[in-house]
């Protein structure tokens, strides 16, 4: 349906979708960049964060507390998973790492299913963010605009932590060469644990923020995981700015293609990923040796 109002609607929607994808992908990409582990449980962490937020919201009725409690819970879960399982796999082949994180994902999904069933659950956004906002060319759900703001703010915080703090500097150094960081006397194990915790939190945080938009089910992470990987591949594996750029590109591809024919939106996403892999295998902002 080609018309200017629809184009602007879809472009704006792509931005909102992209910001969320960027946030989830940034968690995945810093985990891979630092730890070298491809975390296939990332989608499950997105889902688990949503459920953690849901429980907190049920008990407190406060959206802000749900976001806070859910995010903290995910840091703890992330740290625990890293300590108990992932740590034993750093020296194992990539196939083992993929299998074990895939397994963790299944366990998390089935545990949630055991506790909550397969029915959908939703978190209500705060009262002021409900309803629709007229934006001139379209009416748009107010909360989705809020999501765009929250995701952008969260990305800024992540940027600040990674690029303006000492711990961020160590993490970025770890992404470049974790062996050298170790030699310099920094406890790499602690850094790895922290990074996995932050990565899990980014996914979980996105899960909570997204829960009022898309009702939660135990399988909510499946599609997100695939899209997140595409984002990371387009943006460049291990690159935080790459995840942001890749997220926005993916959001726009999904949204703008569906203006012409929605059944091609995912095809286009994969077509662009293929194109990037052919022309620039390390991703748009990735580095050659890391790809």
């Amino acid at each position: 349906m080609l018309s200017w109002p629809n184009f602007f609607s879809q472009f704006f929607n792509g931005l909102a979708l992209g910001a969320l994808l960027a946030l989830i992908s940034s968690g995945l990409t810093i985990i891979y960049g630092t730890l070298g582990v491809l975390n296939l449980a990332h989608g499950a962490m997105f889902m688990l964060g949503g459920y953690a937020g849901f429980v907190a919201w049920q008990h407190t009725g406060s959206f802000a507390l749900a976001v806070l409690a859910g995010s903290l819970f995910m840091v703890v879960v992330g740290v625990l998973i890293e300590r108990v399982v992932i740590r034993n796999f750093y020296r194992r082949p990539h196939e083992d790492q993929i299998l074990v994180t895939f397994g963790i994902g299944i366990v998390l999904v089935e545990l949630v299913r055991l506790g909550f069933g397969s029915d959908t659950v939703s978190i209500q956004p705060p009262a002021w963010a409900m309803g629709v906002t007229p934006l001139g060319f379209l009416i748009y759900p107010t909360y989705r605009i809020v999501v765009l703001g929250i995701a952008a703010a969260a990305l800024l915080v992540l940027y600040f932590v990674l690029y303006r703090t000492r711990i961020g500097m160590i993490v970025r150094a770890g992404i470049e060469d974790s062996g050298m960081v170790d030699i310099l006397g920094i406890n790499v194990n602690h850094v790895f644990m922290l990074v996995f915790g932050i990565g899990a939190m980014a996914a979980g945080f996105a899960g909570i923020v997204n829960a009022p938009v898309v009702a939660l089910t135990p399988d909510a992470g499946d599609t997100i995981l695939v899209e997140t990987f595409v984002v990371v591949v387009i943006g460049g594996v291990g690159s935080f700015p790459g995840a942001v750029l890749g997220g926005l590109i993916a959001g726009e591809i999904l949204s703008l293609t569906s203006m012409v024919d929605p059944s091609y939106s995912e095809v286009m996403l994969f077509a662009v990923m293929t194109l990037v892999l052919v022309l620039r295998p390390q991703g748009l902002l990735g580095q050659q040796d890391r790809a």
Partner: protein
Amino acid sequence: MTDSVGRVSSRRAIIQGAAAGAVATLLPGTSRAANEPAIGTYPAGSSGDTVFIGITIPRTGTYAVPGEDVLKGYQLAIEHLNAGDPLIRMISPHTSKGVLGKQVTSGVADSGAKPNDAVQNGSRFISQNKAVLITGSVSSAEAVALNKLAQREKVIYLPGISGSNDTTGKDCVRYSFRECFYGQTAAAAIAPVMVKNIGKNKKAAYLVPDYTYGHTVHQSMEQFLKAGGWTTATAQVAPLGAPDYSSYLLNIANSGADVFININFGNDAVQSIKQAQQFGILGKQILSVPYNTPFLARDVGADLMAGVYAATDFWWTLEDRFPLAKQFVAAFEKKFGYKPEWGANAGYMQLAMWADAVERAKSFYPPDIIKAYEAGPEIQSTVGPVRFRGADHQLIRPVIIERGKKKADMKSADDYYEVLEVVPGEGLMQAPDAFGCSLGPAT
């Protein structure tokens, strides 16, 4: 299998066979099962004291919730069959306890609504458990795939929920029988009600899941609404299990449609309706659900479903019209603690009618069971008398048209819909060969 061949050739078996043959000549329609050649899992699957039913059903993914409902219908039916419950004997009058005196056991495997997984489950039940029957589906993609497996393996298969025209249309097989209503019957039943209540010459926006079910229901709806002068403003085709419908819904919001026809099923229907409300679509366009999904009203809430037109297979307040529905709802609620949705009804009825066919065939020999089905006698059901159509193995059964009640009008927490019409099935169905059904051989 060697065992049974040996037994057939024994003196006793020959006498038994001859006796059965004599009875068969006296009673037309009965079989001489003991002498039939091995086919599929016959006779290995029914040579002991028990028979095994393989249930493959989505317990995860977007169709998990209706899947669980269908499964509970199966569980109640199996319990009733083994106990010889009066309810199941109203549907299958020859049933005493079990099926042909054999207790029914079952196994359940999750298909995730994926055709490949469903076929793997079915194959495993056939090879490992010698299942005499495979049943279950919520997606027509899995039903169609299992149809093909059933025909190849010569083991009877019964879809659970399957709304595509193809299941008993171009992908029909001799070894499969469908209980539930489907795109064509849904559209034929609901379209006139919509034209009558909403008006003529309206513009419709469709949200269509991208597989056989979605496409055939969409096609049938367009065809029947055309008679009322309705046109299509847009048709948005979305993949199964799409979590975020925003881009599709923006197209629908900008399409200028009067009516929003949502063909999604399961969690997809829940998500897309909730999101449509976020985009302000439900205030501007009238929502219609031509193939209503179990638990939709409970999941999206009465407020969003008030005034929504939907076609369905069964709704619990039919207990006021049909005595069997009353018994079924009571028995189901006693066992599972909630009012059965239409998936449970489909599951229960499928197994009850299969037991009836086996009892009438007096054998587990599949070609005889198929003949018993195809004979198409009138069967009592939870929606009144029904019968199978031999030419495409589709049950001729009514379609229920319902409308969402306002919260204030609900008499109990589960009283979401008002049943507007129970439209008789015969007039809703296409000619048996209109969708290219060719059943294939029984042997």
